[in-house]
């Protein structure tokens, strides 16, 4: 894998993300970049479901939100160390997703997509009525929880670096899977699941595996980000809009490609930031996102990356 330029590109971009805000202790840039990194984590992991396997998961934000809840619960209520809590969140959410996946992955196409919305709503309803997690009010991180990390200021920087690491890891995992035997099985399932099974691919097993894998890193990221934010509530953690935006990012960048998922996420998130903070356009950000999606679907169904590949064919060798 280290022979591929994209491998080094991912490392370079991750390093750049980590170093840029350090320059002059730029907190504004850090907050922008952490949002971009989270968007890239969500899009890259969703890409393995939609782009690789062909299963549209509208509940992709569930992993992120559940990870956040488990992380905050373990750190503040149980007094766990942040890293241990984040890892535990990732593993618990992956296990939960695996079990769910074995059930709902029997569905295909639009039925699966609808079921994932059902999962999202069910989890939100459950958490909203779950007393240990504060029901609808959610959980807060008391300031004392940051003390073991050397105070709130250092905790914020620490979580930032960890999130950037997870972003790099998400892209590397995507790349690794794409070029593996496992990835080939997923592509076969995407193209024609019955044909894949007839060719010997154990489709139910591979689908459940990728569903669980694609939940792991978003859950870890969720644990870190919500801990950093200091609070979590069901409406913010399980927001269908975020899931849909992640899908838009993928289509914008080019589903099925590692670089496309990252590029789409970064561009969309930066655009969203600009629109949300611009006084005249702030209420229109979803309108503009929708229009953008329409243009992409009509004129470049394989996203920005597909357009780049057509414009400059040699770029494919660098970015694949």
């Amino acid at each position, binding site marked *: 894998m280290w022979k591929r330029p994209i491998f080094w590109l991912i490392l370079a971009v991750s390093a750049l993300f980590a170093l840029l805000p350090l320059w002059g202790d730029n907190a504004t840039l850090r907050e922008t970049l952490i949002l971009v990194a989270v968007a890239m984590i969500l899009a890259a992991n969703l890409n393995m479901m939609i782009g690789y396997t062909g299963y549209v998961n509208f509940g992709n934000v569930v992993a992120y939100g559940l990870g956040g809840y488990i992380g905050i619960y373990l750190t503040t209520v149980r007094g766990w160390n942040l890293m241990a809590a984040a890892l535990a969140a990732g593993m618990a959410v992956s296990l939960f997703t695996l079990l769910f996946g074995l059930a709902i992955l029997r569905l295909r196409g639009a039925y699966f997509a609808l079921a994932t919305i059902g999962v999202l709503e069910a989890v939100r309803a459950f958490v909203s009525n779950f007393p240990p997690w504060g029901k609808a009010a959610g959980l807060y991180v008391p300031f004392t929880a940051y003390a073991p990390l050397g105070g709130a200021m250092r905790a914020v920087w620490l979580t930032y670096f960890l999130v950037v690491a997870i972003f790099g890891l998400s892209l590397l995992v995507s790349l690794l899977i794409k070029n*593996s*035997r496992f990835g*080939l*099985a997923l*592509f*076969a399932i995407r*193209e*024609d699941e*019955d*044909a*894949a*099974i*007839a*060719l*010997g*691919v*154990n*489709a139910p097993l591979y689908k459940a595996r990728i569903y669980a894998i694609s939940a792991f890193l978003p859950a870890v990221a969720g644990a870190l980000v919500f801990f950093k934010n200091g609070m979590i509530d069901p409406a913010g953690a399980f927001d269908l809009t975020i899931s849909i935006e992640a899908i838009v990012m993928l289509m914008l960048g080019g589903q099925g490609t590692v670089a496309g998922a990252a590029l789409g996420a970064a561009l969309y998130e930066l655009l969203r930031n600009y629109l949300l903070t611009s006084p005249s356009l702030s209420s229109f950000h979803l309108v503009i996102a929708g229009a953008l999606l329409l243009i992409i679907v009509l004129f470049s169904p394989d996203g920005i990356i597909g357009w780049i590949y057509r414009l400059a064919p040699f770029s494919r060798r660098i970015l694949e």
Partner: protein
Amino acid sequence: MSALLEVRGLSKRFGGLLALSQVNFSLAEGEILGLIGPNGAGKTTLFNLLNGAFKPDQGSVVLAGENVTGWPPNQMVRQGLARTHQIVKPLSNLTVLENVTVGACFGRDHLPLKDARKVAREVLEFVGLADRLTLPARSLTIAGKKRLEVARALAAHPRLILLDEVLSGLNPSEVAPMVDLVRLLPERGIAVFIIEHLMQAIMGLSHRIIVLNFGEKIAEGCPEEIAHHPQVIEAYLGDPHIAVRLMESA
């Protein structure tokens, strides 16, 4: 010759329709066995039962000494049974090479990616698609897609291959090479079970032929026996006496 495939009392019902009823036969190693019958006779249903796409209601299938009745298709491939589809199912957006690599990767030998690619190249050379490796499968012609189906099945390194109408939809100049290709398979240690409507081709290819009609086996034997079997002629042409007169006058 020892029996590679042993089928006993195989039955399948779809609601009120008995699609397949008490079918018995066996297939020897190195054999090319033909399967013919009028439309709706249950030929493809029999293939679907053999490769595990459907579960039989009754009966048993034994492949290479293992009772494989009701196994799912992916396990059947591991046991050495590969198939092609009458309606081709290319993995459209993957390249020709990737399509065949899937077959090799998840076939009988469960090869790692690198070895699978090597096997895929060899098989594509054998079926005559070596010059289209990097094209997406969707860009192939029908004849090319049929070859791709065969190549994917062969890449699985099967003991037995089920060919479901690989000649249909091909023009006469495309049929001959495909027939030659099938004829070579027993030499590679692959037994063949083939459904075909093209009588001339299947009569020439098969060592033995089984005839299905309304889900029942009505005849079995070498091609000449089948061609003169009254029940077979009746199944295809209606009244055997009329049929005989028709054939004599022709």
